[in-house]
């Protein structure tokens, strides 16, 4: 990309759809010329040809000197289904440490085992599953007396299967390395306990599992074993080019540097969700969650997943039929997207955001908040990405965020509508990426608007919202427990002054607070509901409440 052609494509190949964008050089800067998405079963070239055709139909001189489009550069990212891991540890606490690390690195945890809950036939079935690629065993460092027998049993059992499956890799964490004699040497990887080594440090488990994921999904897992099977060195700046999830995180970090903002990025795909918080100095926190896909694979067999998703939808359907519709959404996510199919997708996306948020708000977030460290606090801009958000109007998309990722205070919302960020994140050169993003920032982010989450208003009490922009000042009542949409067009900056007799919670407690907001397709959403959002347990009452917030935001919702 250092010697750019006049035009290039970005391609984001996801589990459900393939999105592509045509980016060309106009008047000395990169511009987004066309973008589209098609179901994943359609050949990418069909989509690219369509993009070129659309641009040529609008202006046939624009790309006349760029040569045949088949020869233009393609910046491609791909997301793959999450790899599977079995976690074993000498205690529940160590198991949770493992789960936190693997869970945040995009692994699908298929079984958790401790010596006290070792069901040999169940574990054997999982160890013989050809889709299982990694087993992790953790123990204290040093191993405590009470752990020794359990660790020996776990290692002996797992080792007996690892010997028969030479492609299976075993990660020994902390004191578990003392049992390496029970395991085939070539299949062992070692890492230090997450309790004693920070993420990103040499030998950390987090670095290892990130690399293992990238290797596994890239299908080149055997290289690591042959290289000696030890912990790799410090993590490279990012994984191999092509991984859409790492690409999205890197691109958000580059965007944060370019815009000099603190940006939270959220991408919901079919097989997983990606979350990143980055500031001008780089990534502050990141996670890839296999359980935050639109409809995770496990939902086909496990009704708890289906019920969690159903609990966030506003579709009118009886329980069994709704579960089957959610399962069909997993099998063919592009089908039936019109009508109440869009309600179903919005519900599934909201459920995925909820799972992503719960993973994010785990023990690490509490630690960070307690210490005031990076990672806590609201971002300036929240960028959404993913095909699920393409089938709903901007205010509804904004509401899905407010329902789940609730940041007290004000935040601007934008949509990576052409799904350009993930492919651009796979560019190897940070300078290239920043240069392109500087040109493209206005094109690639569709402004959804701004949102203010202000808790603290007591039931029945009112406050005042005074919105001042270049067009004048408007005054609106603040009503407790509501979501109001205020018209604020894209490109308009304003100041929202909130006043109340009660202390409002907007990141700080205040009776009067001014927040800068920007307009967008969804305007300004003012949310005075509780944080976290409390919803009724009964399914029908819950659905009605969600619907009362969501329905007014649909335009032409005549399904």
């Amino acid at each position, binding site marked *: 990309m250092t010697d750019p052609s006049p035009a290039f494509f970005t391609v984001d190949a996801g589990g459900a759809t393939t999105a592509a964008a045509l980016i060309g050089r106009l008047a000395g800067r990169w511009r987004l010329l066309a973008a589209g998405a098609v179901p994943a079963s359609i050949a990418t070239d069909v989509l690219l040809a369509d993009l070129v055709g659309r641009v040529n139909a609008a202006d046939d001189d624009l790309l006349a000197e760029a040569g045949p489009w088949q020869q233009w550069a393609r910046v491609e990212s791909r997301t793959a289904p999450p790899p599977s891991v079995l976690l074993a540890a000498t205690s529940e606490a160590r198991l949770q440490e493992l789960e936190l690390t693997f869970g945040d690195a995009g692994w699908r945890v298929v079984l958790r085992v401790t010596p006290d809950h070792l069901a040999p036939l169940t574990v054997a079935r999982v160890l013989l599953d*050809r889709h299982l690629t990694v087993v992790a065993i953790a123990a204290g460092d040093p191993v405590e007396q009470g752990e020794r027998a359990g660790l020996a049993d776990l290692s*002996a059992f797992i080792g*007996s299967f690892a010997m028969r499956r030479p492609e299976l890799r075993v990660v020994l964490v902390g004191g578990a390395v003392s049992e390496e004699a029970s395991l085939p040497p070539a299949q062992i990887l070692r890492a230090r306990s997450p309790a004693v080594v920070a993420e990103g440090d040499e030998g950390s488990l987090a670095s290892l599992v990130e690399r293992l994921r990238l290797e596994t999904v890239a299908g080149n897992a055997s290289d690591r074993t042959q290289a000696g099977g030890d912990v790799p060195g410090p993590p490279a700046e990012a994984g191999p080019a092509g991984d859409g999830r790492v690409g999205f995180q890197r691109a958000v970090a580059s965007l944060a540097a370019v815009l000099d903002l603190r940006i939270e990025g959220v991408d919901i795909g079919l097989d997983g969700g990606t979350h990143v918080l980055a500031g001008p100095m780089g990534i502050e926190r990141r996670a890839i969650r296999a359980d935050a896909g639109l409809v995770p694979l496990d939902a086909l067999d496990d009704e708890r997943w289906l019920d969690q998703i159903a609990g966030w939808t506003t579709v009118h359907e009886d329980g069994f*039929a709704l579960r089957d519709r959610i399962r069909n959404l997993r099998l*063919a996510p592009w089908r039936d997207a019109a009508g109440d*199919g869009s309600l179903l997708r919005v519900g599934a996306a909201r459920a995925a955001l909820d799972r992503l948020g719960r993973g994010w708000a785990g023990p690490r977030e509490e630690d960070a908040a307690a210490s005031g460290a990076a990672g806590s606090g609201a971002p300036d801009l929240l960028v959404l990405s993913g095909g699920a958000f393409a089938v709903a109007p901007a205010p509804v998309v904004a509401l899905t965020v407010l329902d789940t990722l609730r940041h007290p205070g004000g935040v601007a919302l934008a949509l990576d509508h052409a799904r350009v960020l993930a492919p651009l994140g796979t560019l190897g050169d940070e300078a290239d990426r920043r240069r392109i993003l500087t040109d493209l920032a206005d094109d690639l982010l569709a402004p959804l608007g701004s949102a203010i989450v202000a808790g603290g208003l007591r039931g029945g009490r009112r406050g005042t919202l005074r919105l001042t922009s270049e067009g004048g000042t408007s005054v609106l009542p603040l009503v407790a427990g509501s979501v109001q949409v205020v018209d604020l067009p894209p490109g308009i900056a304003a100041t929202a002054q909130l006043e109340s007799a009660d202390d409002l919670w907007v990141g700080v407690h205040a009776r009067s607070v001014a927040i800068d907001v920007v307009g967008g397709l969804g305007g300004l959403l003012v949310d005075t509901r509780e944080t976290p959002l409390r919803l009724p347990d009964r399914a029908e009452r819950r659905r009605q409440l969600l619907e009362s917030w969501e329905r007014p935001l649909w335009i032409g919702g005549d399904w």
Partner: protein
Amino acid sequence: MGRVPTRVLTIREPRLWFALAVGDIPQVGAGDHLGVDDPLAIRLRHPAVAEAALHGPVAPEPGRRFEAGEALAGHGRNAIRFEGNGSVLYRTSSGRVRAAVSRHQDSLLSPVGGTIEIVEASGIQLRAEGNGLRGVMALGEPSHGRLLVAVEGPEAELRASQVDVSQAGSILLAGSRVDVEALTRARAMGVHGMITGGMIGKDLRDLAASLARQEAALHASPPFALLVMDGYGKRPIPELVWECLVEAAGRDVAISIDPPAAILDAGQTIPSRHPDHVRLVSAEGNGRTGRVLELAGLRRRAGGIPMECARVALTPLVQGDEAEIVEVPLADLERDV
């Protein structure tokens, strides 16, 4: 037409995977050529975990398979023996040997002829002779039998009353849905499998529980497989899949679990259609077929969302009627390739 989602109708010589469980003994090697019903592996039926104390330093190797009563370590009265056949799991830190043991075993038979490509601890891969019709899910055990068309058309539902003992040993071609009563009756009658367009998730869960109970039973039952071709709920079998299967009626057809597929005879003719021939896959009009007249561009659909659409001339439901022209989102169309 390139923008209409595609469904790959057939896979030539599909690779079938037969998962092995702990204690299963493969009976084949890579490169072996198998016929229908040749044994792939000997399986432990409903194994349990047994353990015995070691009386010496030598422990049997993990993974070692043994016969009932066979001395695994030690001598004479101190030798480790188990009452059933099985496989050694591991030696515990307290000096005991744990094993997966069963008094009963049976054979996993190949439902189709082909060549063994991989034999490993996890399973066996067979390159099947024939053409695979890919489904979306399958449940049960790989099986085969003579294909019988049990319903009038791809939209029809198979009722329990349509299943009888004359269908024993066969694979039934059901329509858009099979209920749990029909499944239960079919298994009781000795039917080897069913192929359906859709299946209610709850019925699928009931079937899975029933199959698990059967596995734990003392007496082995003939293998039974359910193959779902399109999705959950009531869904017609796709038109060309239906035609392929009707063409195969009366012949031996196998059902594979991994991948979910029906394996047809290699010599069978595979029907085809003009490239602009499509099938509706949305909830409304699901299963109807037609011809794409032109791409209609972006159209605002219910809910206010703009979508790329095509104008489609639907094949009349009654012969002689005029074709109905509708605008359908491209993503709600499908064509077979």
